[in-house]
């Protein structure tokens, strides 16, 4: 459907709906529910240079309209993901994917991005500088302008593929950080990653997550994500993938008003595995209702 098409740099998507990293595995856990080829693209589970087993369980907690996770970037390492997961995925998903990478020092980011540079299947490299789960990891790169800038600068040197930097919301100056990434050659911004939360067991008083804190996501964070996308849109001229709390076609429209060129859906997939399909099916109906002809017409409407 023409009216749903969006562009992220040179990558044209059939629609703006993309499942978010960490909630869609490596693409084949939803095959029982719908054909993934209806999606705009897929952001794969966050991958690191070396295999990671993640945190001790319990890794999941919840709250009203939201959840906490302390998965801790469990993944089999980038070599295995490229050699096995991408090959498997290619058989069932025929479009380009968004490859999400994390690192614990700049060299790891650089090595991952370098390995992805010549892989045709990879449409966008999404650099997660914000995962709050790993104590000595991502957080530091996403928490201030200079470290965000230095990651961007170094990975930029090793790839010509579109680079989207995925930002942490756990900062006081997200628009400044986005601007530093743009200045160092980022092609786009993905935002937001999870907030940080904790829950305690009422009977024992002890933390529910073994890791004590976890990434907070789901519908409860939508207003935070909308506010931050709005702020960043004012400061940068590169496209934004809006993420955080989206569960319906209405939320997609709102996120695009705030300034997103495409959106990702995370937690809502876990609660209802049909979410992305429903949102894609509902979008044309909601656009009719709101008199929107082409979805691209509304990007940044909140600012006009």
């Amino acid at each position, binding site marked *: 459907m023409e009216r749903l098409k969006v562009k992220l740099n040179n990558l044209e998507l059939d629609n703006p709906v993309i499942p978010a990293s960490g909630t869609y595995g490596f693409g084949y856990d939803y095959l029982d529910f719908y054909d993934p080829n209806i999606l705009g693209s897929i952001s794969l589970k966050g991958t690191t240079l070396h295999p990671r087993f993640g945190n001790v369980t319990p890794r999941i907690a919840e709250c009203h309209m939201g959840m906490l*996770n302390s998965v801790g970037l469990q993944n089999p390492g980038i070599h295995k993901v490229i050699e096995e997961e991408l090959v498997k995925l290619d058989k069932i998903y025929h479009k380009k994917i968004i490859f999400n990478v994390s690192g614990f020092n700049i060299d790891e980011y650089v090595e991952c991005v370098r390995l992805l540079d010549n892989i045709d299947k990879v449409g966008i490299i999404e650099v997660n500088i914000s995962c709050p789960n790993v104590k000595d990891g991502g957080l530091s790169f996403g928490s201030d302008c200079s470290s965000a800038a230095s990651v961007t600068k170094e990975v930029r040197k090793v790839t010509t593929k579109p680079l989207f930097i995925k930002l942490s919301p756990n900062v006081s100056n997200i628009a400044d950080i986005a601007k530093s990434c743009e200045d160092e050659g980022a092609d786009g911004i993905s935002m937001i990653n999870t907030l940080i939360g904790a829950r305690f067991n009422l009977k024992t008083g002890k933390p529910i997550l073994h890791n004590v804190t976890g990434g907070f996501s789901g519908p409860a964070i939508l207003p935070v994500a909308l506010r931050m996308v709005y702020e960043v849109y004012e400061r940068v001229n590169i496209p934004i993938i809006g993420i955080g709390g989206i569960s319906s076609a209405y939320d997609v429209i709102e996120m695009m008003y705030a300034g997103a060129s495409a959106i990702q859906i995370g937690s809502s997939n876990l609660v209802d595995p049909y979410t992305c399909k429903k949102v894609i099916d509902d979008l044309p109906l909601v656009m009719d209702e709101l008199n929107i002809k082409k979805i691209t017409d509304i990007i940044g409407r909140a600012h006009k």
Partner: protein
Amino acid sequence: MVFNMKKIENYKIIHNNLIAKNTYEMKLEGNVGWIDKPGKFINVSVDSNYLKRPISICDYDETTLTLVYKVFGSGTKWLSNKKENEKIEALVNLGNGFELNTENEALIIGGGVGVPPLYALSKRLKEKGVKLTIILGFTSKEDSFYIDKFKELSELVYISSNDGSIGEIGFVSDIMIKYNLLDIPYYTCGPTPMLKAVHSISTAKGQLSLEERMGCGFGACMGCSHKTKNGYKRVCVEGPVFTSEEIIWND
């Protein structure tokens, strides 16, 4: 209708009865064509909470399935308030289930709310002519359930309780030792400390059904990972049943 995919299904409640302290038996009518073996679970939507609640299949026939659950928090509380003829929604056909092995003898070891999935399992094993020895452990008499139903399946049913108010005082592992049941191939489900004890004292092979907090229940979030000798596995997809040979305890 037979299907082998994960799916959202609606079920009509036939009854939702209190059968022990805070423990309910909920019989549901709807699609059960996916239940090809005991030990699978469903993830029940509860209006009270954001995430679904995983509950094992306790029993099933051609048109119904039965859950037995204990009220722990808000989700199971919500479930306990549902009435006959109301509907519930669940993501179904989750987990691997028990493999019905070919041995002609089996030891069934259940603790508390780990007992339910062992009921359908015991029925299927009995149908295959397997000789069953059953040990059920409960906190106390008021928590106990399904003892008579298990007794219909075997003459060898041992009961233990923490306070001795029913059966013998102590743990299921005490019974295993006392009656020298350590070399019978076993199937078990219950609290983790119990599973660890059974796993460490038995000299036979076994299948253990584990619990982990779940985000999705269908393999997408990595919330429920459990370490095994063959790497990390998802309790919701490669589990909840693991073999005694592959299992490693987290920590």
